[in-house]
């Protein structure tokens, strides 16, 4: 079958997936080694993150949750920046304006209205930028998801809402989260298109995002994309899923993981060789080695930073304590 992208782009997309995968796998190791703090594992979410963002230009904005903490990598954000976020070091707090990547959103779904507002605001200015927000299946139960998507729809804002449906919210399964057939169904209530794709098929995710971005740019408003897969790793390094997940099922899911799948697609299409696989992986591992080294080489943060940046123009009594 003909693939959705030219060869060079397929290889770039592949590189991004490998980079994200490498970042994730190394981070779990770094955590075990005590070199980073608690970390939210996104193993097997790479097809969604790389595929959806591949439909964007650099003018477009990305609104990640903690699950997409490393998504800035697709924009060339340094590995060490993201590592520092997980190391609790201030140099991990990038400026959204530098990368058009919003800060990692920790409160579930609370960034959905931000994406709606950015998209709306850009449209009001006649600037073409699209906003793409990432969130999970659990996030769709939050009021702020509802208010944000509805507002974007009403404002006809150029936004793309990508739901990473990994079927778990920590220990809460999807059936305890919603009674809907699919999360894409929620789009109906907002009067916008809802699309359901295989979250492990990077090209399917890309195509859905490409069409959604095209609609947004054409002035046809937001789209909700549900990328369905299964969380095949713990929620985070602190989490032990054995208590609530059938590990057998997890094993099966791990076997279906998205990167290997894309590799075989590319190999079958004669686009990717074992040498390229090898070199891409080593290149990314190199980046990680350099990244963690750079992070660890950074001097400890100046405690004075407790006070800087809270205000442009701080109240005198801010330091009283």
């Amino acid at each position, binding site marked *: 079958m003909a693939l959705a992208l030219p060869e060079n782009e397929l290889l770039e997309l592949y590189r991004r997936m490998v980079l994200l995968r490498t970042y994730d796998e190394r981070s779990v190791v770094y955590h075990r080694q005590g070199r980073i703090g608690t970390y939210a594992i996104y193993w097997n979410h790479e097809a969604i993150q790389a595929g959806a963002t591949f439909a964007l230009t650099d003018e477009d*904005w990305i609104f990640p949750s903690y699950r997409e903490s490393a998504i800035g990598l697709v924009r060339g954000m340094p590995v060490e920046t993201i590592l520092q976020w997980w190391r609790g070091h*201030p140099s991990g*707090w*990038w*400026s*959204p*304006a*530098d990368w058009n990547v*919003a*800060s990692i959103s*920790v*409160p579930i779904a*609370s*960034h*959905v*209205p*931000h*994406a*709606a*507002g*950015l*998209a*709306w*605001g*850009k449209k*009001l*200015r006649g*600037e073409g*930028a699209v*906003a793409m927000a990432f969130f999970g299946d659990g996030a769709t139960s939050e*009021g*702020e998801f*509802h*208010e*944000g998507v*509805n*507002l974007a729809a*009403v404002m006809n804002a150029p936004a793309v809402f990508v739901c990473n449906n990994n079927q778990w919210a920590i220990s809460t399964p999807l059936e305890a989260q919603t009674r809907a057939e699919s999360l894409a169904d929620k789009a109906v209530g907002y009067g916008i298109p809802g699309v359901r794709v295989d979250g492990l098929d990077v090209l399917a995710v890309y195509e859905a995002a490409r069409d959604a971005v095209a609609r947004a740019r054409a002035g046809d408003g937001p789209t909700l994309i549900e990328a369905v897969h299964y969380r095949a790793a713990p929620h985070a390094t602190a989490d032990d899923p054995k208590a609530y997940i059938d590990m057998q099922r997890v094993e099966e899911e791990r076997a279906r993981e998205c990167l290997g799948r894309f590799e075989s697609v590319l190999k079958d299409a004669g686009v990717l060789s074992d040498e390229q696989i090898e070199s891409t992986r080593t290149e990314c591992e190199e980046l990680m080695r350099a990244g963690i080294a750079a992070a660890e080489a950074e001097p400890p943060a100046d405690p004075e930073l407790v006070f*800087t*940046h*809270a*205000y*442009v*123009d701080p*109240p*005198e*009594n801010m330091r009283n304590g």
Partner: protein
Amino acid sequence: MAELTLVEAVNDALHCELERDANVMVLGEDVGRAGGVFRATAGLRDRFGSDRCVDTPLAEAGILGSAIGLCMAGWRPVVEMQYDAFSYPSLNQLITHVGRYRWRSGGKMEFPLTIRMPYGGGVRAPELHDDSPETYYVHTPGIKVAIPSTPADAKGLLAAAIRDPDPVVILEPKLVYRTARGEVPEGEHVVPLGQARLAREGSDVTLIAYGAMVKVCEDAADALDVSCEIVDIRSLRPLDEASILASVAKTGRVVIVHEAPRTVGFGAEIAALIAEKAIFDLHGPVLRVTGFDVPYPYWTIEDAYMPSVERVTAAVQKLL
């Protein structure tokens, strides 16, 4: 100079600031077609268009959250919350994002948004149209809070808030929206945040208040035959500690007045400030006349809840 009511002054400030800066926009429930339930935004939609005075869906968290995104897109949003108690659904956005986003950006981005709302009791309204939520706002890091008591300050503080690079919450005392009338400078008028107003000079007792309680203090002062100094705080954060401490040094007697429930109301912060920095100036206890730690009552008996001239004068007499 024109003589305006407090709510007219708010409307005047919005016209001036939208005129002055094309990045300023107003959003909220019923601010456009209706011009606001108190007419605070009247005329803006006709004058500046429906893109700069926007009727939003009925969703306070969505409104405030989208204002954060609007800031990222280069706008200076002025958000109206229709009433004090109806701002609560937006508290999560306020606390977790509005107050923290600039810090998150390493100081590289600004979130110059303004949140304004009518607040306070005494208006004979149904439940939840009477709250004084200033504690929820002023306790939240990254936020500034101002409360005018006069038309001129209502205009000047709102202008300052809109121009301020940090997020500012303006609480407008709806009890005196139409009864507080006064001279208001025409055109641009800015009252800097962080400066208290000496509403009245006096020597025996310092009455510290803000919003609609300033008038209550003035009436109490008139009713008393002691010399009362009245400090209208105006700006809760940044707080003008110097003016408060100077007045306490002068009088040695303090009564703090606010409508909000007493426990960790803003009066507690003022009292703590004095207990820390002016303890040796005091001739007696620091007294608070406040709302009670109960739900705001049914309006036929709300006068028993609201700080009154009687309660303020009684407190002053205790100190003499």
